[in-house]
């Protein structure tokens, strides 16, 4: 149907309304042609009788009630999909912006996606090596998982994301996957409402490390229209699903910043006049976020996987804010940044106690990482939790008054943060190095305190000498950090 509708009924923020339309489908895409020859894309978000409400992706700047002609396409929003999307840069709506011309489509894909049938999912089990001790040992990333990074403004989440993207490797549990080349592993990067500098930082970092060839970028900068921001993750995930499930690749999707996305959704919702839920966010924020996050996974009939690392900045560092709160209810764990650690110069300054990987328990241990992994990580968690108790007690009664045990924990806490959590931007630690380092640190505690480890394993590994290398060296390490700062 090639009917053109001339003019609009009203305009409200990014929304325009038309009257007298017929045969229009919900969620359909329309082209809005302006009199100056430019064209914008809109999507039907509400239909009532002969009235249709469209959201305009590029914004409504310059649109009047008279200067438009609208043509409905009869189709939902589709983007061209192809293997050659890797190495390319697109805008939030999936249009190439790197000057290399259009992608020749192998297939057109509906960006809305469909929900995966839980029966067709495979439970994710294989771990992804990131080379970052705190993540690999304590909050292990699993292939097909969605593990967000909760950060705050000014913390080093972008640096961490680049380091993960750079170092991430798949380690297989069987021969077939071990022989996989790097070509099977790729990154889809979606930037939503990030500053130009940040987008450039990512692009430059990917170029410098040579990773750019296996990265597909979707960029929506903070100055770009908000409706396009709502499309950015949809386009990115559609590309990721295509590469993973039809091209059998392992795709890591990095999405930053989910907070900007949620704010765009709130802006859109309020201009639509919807009843707000908590903090003004629409009541369907949970469902909306879930529709994105649940697009991670491993499915039957394909050897590929989609793993997501969404990054969000917690407004005012508040983890109970609706965005991190709802995210963590959907995702399989969270990696949380700690401002205090960051200020101490620890990189990556992750809050071990607040962070969690739900899928870790089934993807570590013998056959995946190392048989003592679970024991080491449990004990490190438990010990570090006691460090916090000792510290809060010390802040009340003074460090001198602490019992010997508590003093041992105070020492352990410092060593753990400086040696285990802290690592260089170019330092890629193997899982063996990480776990051995964990053992070395645990040996700084009295043997009787290691109550989460099996006696036999403890007898085999425990040796106070192992911790000796830290006691002499801790002063030097401190200067190292100072230098880096």
């Amino acid at each position, binding site marked *: 149907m090639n009917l053109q509708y001339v003019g609009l009924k009203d305009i409200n923020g990014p929304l325009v309304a038309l009257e007298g339309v017929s045969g229009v489908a919900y969620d359909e895409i329309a082209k809005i042609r302006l009199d100056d020859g430019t064209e914008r894309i809109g999507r039907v978000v509400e239909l009532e009788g002969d009235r249709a409400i469209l959201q305009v992706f590029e914004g409504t700047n310059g649109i009047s009630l008279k200067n438009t002609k609208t043509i409905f396409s009869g189709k939902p929003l589709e983007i061209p999909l192809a293997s050659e999307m890797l190495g390319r840069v697109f805008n939030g709506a999936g249009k190439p912006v790197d000057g290399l011309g259009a992608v020749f489509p192998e297939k057109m894909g509906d960006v809305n996606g469909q929900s995966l049938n839980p029966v067709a999912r495979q439970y994710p089990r294989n771990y992804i090596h990131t080379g970052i001790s705190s993540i690999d040992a304590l909050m292990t990333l699993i292939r097909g998982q969605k593990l967000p990074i909760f950060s705050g403004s000014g913390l080093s989440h972008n640096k961490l994301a680049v380091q993960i993207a750079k170092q991430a490797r798949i380690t297989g549990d069987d021969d077939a996957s071990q022989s996989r080349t790097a070509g099977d592993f790729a990154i889809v990067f979606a930037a939503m409402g990030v500053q130009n500098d940040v987008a450039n930082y990512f692009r430059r970092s990917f170029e410098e490390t040579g990773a750019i060839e296996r990265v597909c970028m979707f960029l929506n900068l903070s100055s770009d229209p908000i409706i396009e921001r709502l499309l950015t993750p949809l386009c990115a995930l559609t590309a990721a699903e295509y590469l993973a499930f039809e091209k059998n690749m392992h795709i890591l999707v990095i999405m930053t910043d989910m907070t900007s996305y949620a704010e765009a959704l709130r802006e859109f919702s309020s201009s639509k006049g919807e009843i707000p839920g908590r903090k003004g966010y629409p009541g369907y924020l949970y469902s909306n976020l*879930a529709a994105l996050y649940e697009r991670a996974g491993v499915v*039957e009939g394909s050897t590929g996987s989609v793993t997501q690392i969404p990054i969000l900045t917690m407004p005012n560092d508040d983890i109970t804010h609706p965005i991190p709160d709802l995210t963590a209810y959907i995702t399989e764990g969270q990696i949380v940044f700690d401002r205090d650690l960051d200020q101490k110069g620890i990189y990556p300054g992750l809050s071990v106690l607040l962070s969690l990987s739900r899928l870790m328990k089934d993807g570590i241990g013998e056959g995946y990482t190392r048989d003592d992994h679970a024991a080491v990580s449990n004990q490190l968690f438990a010990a570090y939790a006691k460090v916090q108790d000792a510290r809060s007690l010390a802040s*009340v009664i003074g460090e001198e008054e602490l019992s010997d045990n508590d003093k041992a924990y105070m020492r352990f806490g410092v060593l753990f943060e400086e040696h285990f959590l802290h690592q260089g931007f170019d330092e890629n630690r193997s899982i063996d190095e990480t776990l051995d380092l964990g053992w070395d640190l645990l040996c700084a505690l009295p043997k009787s305190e290691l109550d989460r480890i099996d006696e036999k394993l403890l007898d085999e590994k425990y040796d106070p000498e192992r911790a000796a290398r830290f006691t002499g060296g801790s002063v030097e390490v401190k200067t190292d950090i100072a230098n880096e700062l």
Partner: protein
Amino acid sequence: MNNTVYSINGPVVKAANTRDFSMLEMVYVGEKRLIGEVIGVTDEFTTIQVYENTAGLKIGEPIESTGAPVCANLGPGIISNIFDGIERPLRDMTKLNGVFVAEGNSLFSLDTEKKYDVTVTVKVGDKLCGGDIYCTCPETPLITHKCMVPPNVEGEVVFTAENGQYCVNDTIIKLKLIDGTELPLTMVQKWAIKKARPIAKRLAIKRPLITGQRVIDTIIPIAKGGAAAIPGGFGTGKTMTQHQLAKWCDADIIVYIGCGERGNEMTQVLEEFGELIDPKSNRPLTDRTVLIANTSNMPVAAREASIYTGITLAEYYRDMGYHIAIMADSTSRWAEALREISGRLEEMPAEEGFPAYLPSRLSEFYERAGYVENLNGTEGSVTIIGAVSPQGSDFSEPVTQNTKRFVRCFWALDKSLAYARHYPAIDWNSSYSEYIEDLSDFYNENVSPDFMSLRQEISNILQEETKLMEIVKLIGADVLPDDQKLTIETARVVRVGFLQQNAYHKDDTYVPLEKQRLMMKVIVDLYTRSLGALKNGVPLSDIMATGLFDKAVKIKYEVPNDELKRFDGYFKEIDEMIGGLTVTGGLL
């Protein structure tokens, strides 16, 4: 008359100028025949919530009335199956639509081609009324399915089929109703999901749902036929706790509703329950489990329905005389679905955007739990265990607060316990169970007469510790007198050795009641003997030096569940070692 779509807003569709629809009627919307439910009727508009994605739907597409409410199909083939929120079989859907859930398929819930080995239990001339069983067949090796006359039907048997192999839609008997018409009964009946199935009467609650989880069974027990809520922020282990209960509790059948939660969790349940062997029956747990999966990215209206579908299936099996436990994970997502639909209807919101009818919906749901006498005289129960995901981990939010009013058992999961990896992270201070009094007779008669008094001692120690910790936080533990230090040490044993339970340890994942009692007894014994020794002047450091406290912590791993005789050794050791101390103290 042609009824057509007038407006579309997400899952809410309206039809104009029609009087053909009734409230809660099921309808087919559009060319794709999406399934929907009428949720509002006015002079001008009929409002319909659609259980499927409405993308691509157009104004003017037809809406077809069915004349019946949204119903569940009840018959053999439900157990071990996995359904979506409106009881469509997800396994069959993958054969039809591949890995994604597609719209508009009206797959029948049950396998219509599978033959069951049917035994007819009535004969021609029998007078039957609602609830009476007319045939049985083995549904899984664990569950015998009993087909019952639908409630509100009464008549005389005029035809019975021979015993033998039948499909679910074959006619098994025919009833001559009072008005003279003949009603053929197959093995399937339909029941509206939003209506509770009738019962003869409610019975008093008297038996616990035994879960093998120490903190639940002894400290905060749940009764068969009761309702419990598990509120907890993210990462506190709600799902883990529900999985443990689903695996180990002594219900006959588990209905597990994944309501707006993660897809991978449902996959995990599917995989794990297929592999795990129930020690009592030596069969995989799937043989007694039904899964309802409406993950967070599936259509929101079907999420609302999934809770009702789940409880209707449970009530159906209860009517056969089984004990059912429902795990609803999570009721907050269900409440959010209500809020989302309510927002689209532009209803006046109450607290935090939730509709004003949230409390009444919650109470309707939890009141469908109960220990009952069925229409056919058998006894059965439905126990509801609902997870609540409070926004921002704040228990004062509307869903938690309103749920609290309608459940009598409250297992509050605590963030700081979870951070310390104390699992299950049920906080003993803020959790409670009003069933304790109803159940104390059962424990005292069936486990041991000292069970409830031991339990009280353990609670006292924990309460005393909570008080003392206030002081310790301010001035450190060193300044406390020895008897208070002893309380703190004993409480540590209770927390680490008794309340903490390791779901991944082969013995600790399920602990029989007798072992729970003996563990309590060891701790209480150790405490009273040590207290006695302290009074005789023995310093606490000597008592601690015996290593008995650390030993008590490890009982859970050291004593296998089938070798409870080993406890004798512990009692003897306590007697000898602490007793020995008294003598030395006395000599000095």
